[in-house]
């Protein structure tokens, strides 16, 4: 294969009827075609398809978490707090922002835009939620952070130390945020906050023996997180 002229020459003299030379170069073309095809489909599947699969969206206003965490008194809970009935407020409403941002505080363009477009017009900011779960999922922040004594970082990563909001990527087929499937298209997970799929929840639930009360599976019951 490496040097077809060497092998074809003696063979040709022995039996002129056979044409092994064209056969082996044809084989090489097939193998080359296969290798290129494989490489092309790998690129298609691992790079192009995932890029096409997710549509990228910018948040309506850029937000500097690092700056705000220093300014507020109670860490994450200052804006992402529990309501009295035990439910979690999630992303803050304009009400929390207005306490400080009734007028422009700093010098950034984003803040000026936030004040003129949302605060002055009294419009809620349509924040895109990175950790939005499908609507068949029940998630209790109280059960995890109070009863389970977990940190925000365990699931949400170091968003609290970021200067800018990341680009929100949404799966064009399912409509779910990329943070659910995770950045890594192969599903490889290095940190606890890399992914938010059902298996990631159950992995911890089994380890921590959380309501492993299912009669069918003798593991976690589905009704713990599904609704």
């Amino acid at each position, binding site marked *: 294969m490496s040097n077809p002229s060497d092998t074809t020459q003696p063979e040709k003299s022995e039996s002129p009827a056979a044409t092994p030379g064209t056969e082996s170069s044809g084989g090489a073309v097939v193998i080359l075609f296969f290798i290129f095809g494989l490489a092309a489909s790998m690129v298609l599947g691992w790079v192009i398809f995932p890029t096409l699969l997710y549509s990228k969206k910018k948040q309506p206003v850029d937000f500097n978490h690092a700056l705000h965490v220093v300014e507020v008194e109670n860490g994450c809970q200052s804006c992402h707090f529990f309501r009295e009935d035990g439910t979690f407020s999630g992303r803050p409403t304009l009400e929390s922002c207005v306490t400080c941002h009734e007028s422009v505080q700093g010098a950034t363009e984003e803040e000026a835009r936030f004040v003129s477009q949302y605060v002055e017009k009294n419009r809620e900011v349509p924040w895109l939620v990175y950790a939005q779960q499908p609507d068949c999922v029940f998630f209790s922040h109280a059960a995890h952070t*109070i009863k389970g004594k977990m940190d925000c970082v365990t699931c949400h990563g170091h968003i609290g130390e970021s200067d800018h909001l990341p680009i929100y990527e949404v799966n064009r087929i399912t409509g779910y945020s990329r943070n659910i499937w995770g950045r890594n298209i192969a599903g490889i997970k290095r940190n606890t906050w890399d992914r938010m799929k059902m298996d990631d929840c159950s992995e911890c639930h089994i380890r921590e023996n959380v309501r492993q009360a299912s009669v069918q599976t*003798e593991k976690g019951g589905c009704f713990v997180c599904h*609704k």
Partner: protein
Amino acid sequence: MKQAHGKTKKFGMVIDLDKCTGCGTCMVACMAENNVPFRKDETDKRLSITWMQVYKLTNGKSYPDAEICYLPRPCQHCEGHHSGHSPCVSVCPATATDYDSETGIVSQIYTRCFGCRYCMAACPYHARYFNWWDPVWPGDMEKYLSPNVSPRMRGVVEKCSFCFHRYQLAMEKAILEGRHELEEQEYQTSCTQACPAGAITFGDLNNPEHKVHQLAQPDPHHHGRPKNPKVFRLLERLHTNPKIYYFSSKEWVRRAGDNYVKDESKSDHHE
């Protein structure tokens, strides 16, 4: 079976048939609470989805002895002969329906169900319903759906969940307040609270302080069979061990709860 800390609960109901007027408020409250779909034409009741269904019983006699009784029927949340061997759970090939040994609630996971309907065939109470169509909510009604209950899609089975989302939300509040246990009144189903006659009582059958326990007096040695002679369960002799108890002062109503051979004596009632 592993058990988390805290006592094992067994949520159940006692429905007082003497009080039930058959008004159907429980059915309406249930549909609104649980985003139960309906169609334009509901004339064929075999296709209707009613997690809570009020049945009408008659004693079959003519005037002046004719009597009727209304019997609301939610999912019976059967425990079966041994823990969790309910008719539906034991046949489900998809693990879409499950028995929770902590609460005693039979769950139904719609995203897991693939619609084979074995459970519907297995359920002796007709408490399970199949979605033959995707739900269509007229006008702006979609905005009125409860975010606490996921709407179902075509091709899955659904049934009463004892308003499990209410348990979840009550637990959230309890956790925030640093408690592990719920008060009796903190977790009540929608039908219980809606009943204008106060015929439905809901609570933990394992807890002697709860009203359901006092009314039904479940016998732990006989699979929860009621010790109160005026209380019965539907199809007791199938050993489904349901958690819905019915109270009636009338003998013919209590007899209507099970199938009897024509001349079977009263003493056979409890085998």
